[in-house]
């Protein structure tokens, strides 16, 4: 990060999305954590392999895929629930999973 950016960081105001009052280090650390959660990042070694935009992009995609998976699983569980094969206990379990 350039020094100019840092000075901008200090100067910038707070509470705006584009502000850089929060240190870049903090943000990059958070981004690293986020990246660590992503599936494909497992194979990577470099911390800063991805730019911030890339990490955010991957995160969005991953969240969407997780949403999709949750939907699929919910559907499966709902089908299970509607089938006659489950006991009442299992039905309770399913319902709790479906929340």
């Amino acid at each position, binding site marked *: 990060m350039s020094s100019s950016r840092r000075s901008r960081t200090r100067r910038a105001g*707070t*509470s*705006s*999305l*584009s*502000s850089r009052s*929060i240190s870049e280090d*903090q*943000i990059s650390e*958070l*981004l690293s*954590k*986020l990246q*660590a*959660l*992503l*599936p494909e990042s*497992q194979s990577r070694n470099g911390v800063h392999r991805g730019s*911030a*935009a890339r990490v*955010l*992009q991957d*995160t*969005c*995609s*991953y*969240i*969407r895929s*997780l*949403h999709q*998976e*949750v939907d699929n*699983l*919910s559907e*499966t*569980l709902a089908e*299970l629930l509607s089938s006659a094969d*489950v*006991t009442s*206990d*299992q039905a309770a*379990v*399913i*319902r*709790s*999973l479906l*929340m």
Partner: protein
Amino acid sequence: MLLHHDDAGPPLGLPAHDDDGDDDAVPPWLHCPVVGDADADDTAPLPPEYCAGLLPAEYSAAAPPEPAKQAAPPAPAPAEGVMNFTFFSRPLQRPPASHSHPVRESTAVQAAAATNRLRSTPLFSEQRMAWLQPPKAPRAAAVVAPPPPPPTQAPLAPPPDGRCRGAVKEAGTVTPTPHGMQQPEAAAAPDAVTTSSVCSGNGDRSHANKRSGGSLHHQHHADCSVSLSQDELDLDVDDEGGATRRSSAAARSSKRSRTAEVHNLSERRRRDRINEKMRALQELIPNCNKIDKASMLEEAIEYLKTLQLQVQMMSMGSAGLCVPPMLLPAAAMAALPHPHPMAQYAHFPHHMAMGLGFGAFDMLPLQLARGVPAHFPCPPMAMPAPGPMFGVPSPAAMFAHAAAPAAGTGAGTAPPEQVEAAAAAPAPARSGAEQPPVPAAAQET
């Protein structure tokens, strides 16, 4: 044969003149793009119009813009009659504006854009295109495609509105009407002058260069596409405008400052891109009202973990319930339900993880192998199907990561029997849970 009508105005699609009987089988409008007939002359202006948008940018640029321009006036007229392309022809004012729509509409939009060669001021398209292209455009398209679920153009307004909320007031002017959206955008474009928003697509020289090139890439830009900044407006109005600005800037300042200016522009472009991604992320996270980056990122991290956990839970549950209990290895029987704290994830029916018959031991390692659980921020609990733990208990064990010793006894979370344990386990599990609120909440569920 196909298109007897002269291009004066008769709709292409109407079947009347076509072969008898063929019309029944083939929708009349299908004939429209087919140019190879004697009427090719008549329809010549149209095919390029319709096809241009579908082709890569280069083609659209190469494809005669001049004939297109000439055909622009007549094009909309015949296009009007075409059943499927009616709404494409409408936006005469702002063809590029149509690019702001999500992927679903992209084809239609592109056709519209191509059709309406009135892009004298391609304000939006270039911006979007320019900085969409470098960052993964296809991925961007994927990013945008899911959120807006729009069969029509109506929903298109909301996404841009939502995304550029803070930055672009004009986004609100994009009404949901199918045609209106382009026109208001046209109106908005000049009005958006003042908005140097985060979403601004980097008004840059490259925009002008990629004017015709980007027609395919605005897919990405449902959001923030409306946002404009003054300089971007200027740049995009014309190449000349941009050049003027550039030259004037160069004339005014030395080369060094111009370099700095370019640098600043690229910096801003980068920041805009990041901010746009942040907004996208913010929209994905429920109840996220954070506006500063750091807290938003933290929330994103937490949410991601939560989601992963949820997926894990549900997949385990469905697997367990779908598989007959006989699959349980005998060794699992020895691992009796062991009450352990599942504190952190109180909002999940984690106790059910124990209650569920983890019958599919063989499946679980697969699930774990997917790497999802590996992402859980838990101390190494031997995630990948540890020997005694059968992988099954690991999610439950993960909950107990606060109680590290549970790792060794994590196997205890796997109930020996599926059905019987399901009834029995939750009870002892609940009572055994360290945190009363957790089982209380679980019981409430």
